[in-house]
């Protein structure tokens, strides 16, 4: 069975984005859970907890953006 280059490219893009978005999604969920736990324990520290949560989510989301860049590169340039 012969797989053409076009089919291989499309498969690669699908798998890249599919598996690549798993890690950041789980990571963001864990960060959110940690923030909710901390907020439940100490509702007065709402400001710092939310600020640090947003920053940590930005770090985790950046990895998903790297995966998106790679898949866009695969589709439009290769």
């Amino acid at each position: 069975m012969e797989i053409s280059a076009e089919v291989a490219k499309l498969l690669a893009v699908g798998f890249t984005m599919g598996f690549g978005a798993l890690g950041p999604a789980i990571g963001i969920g864990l960060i959110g859970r940690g923030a909710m736990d901390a907020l439940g324990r100490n509702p007065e520290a709402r400001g710092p907890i939310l600020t640090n949560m947003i920053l940590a989510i930005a770090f985790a989301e950046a990895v998903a953006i790297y995966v998106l860049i790679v898949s866009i590169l695969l589709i439009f340039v290769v």
Partner: protein
Amino acid sequence: MALVPGGLQNALEYLCEIAGSFIEEMVGKEHERRMFPLIMSVFLFVLVNAWLGLLPGFETIKLNGEPLLRSANTDINVPLMLAVVCVLMIEYWGLRSRGLGYLKSFFDLHHFLSAAQSIRHGYVRDCMTNLFYGGIYLFVGFLELLGHAVRVLSFSFRLFGNMTAGVVLTSVALFLVPLVLPSLFYGLEALFGLVQAVVFAGLTAVFGYAAISSAEH
């Protein structure tokens, strides 16, 4: 400029106060004044560019197939420029406030010095242990340098990817269901523009604080 402000000056001072307290809770009172110009400028630049891209006419009016007006964050050069400037300023703050001791977090050579001392006194096993630790710290310092250099890529791709993905998402939403759904994605775009501006400025502040204050490893 009135000493007791009223009206427009009052509102602008209020906004500056909000930004100042945001930076202060991440950086501490004594460094906040030093970092405020860069962080506020970066925040306003990213925010205005992101929200300008939402006006009607951006990305839709085409000249020879290319859009006539585009948000500046969707071109890779602008986020790259912001990232390079911010990383250079972080290194400058580190060097300025800790002198050449800032370089000790990358090149930690005191283990080699104690290895030379112990071989001079004749302790061979201590010398071997110190050489081993020196090698490990050299590797760790190299990883730290690599982490600092990767920040340029991380900053620029975070902003560029979010903005470009937002543009693609809105175009796809307009193509699929042109009636009511795109307004939801429009609001999402506005929120993401604000969040990315806050994140860019806030991460610069956090890394600047780490460069200024970290002496304990």
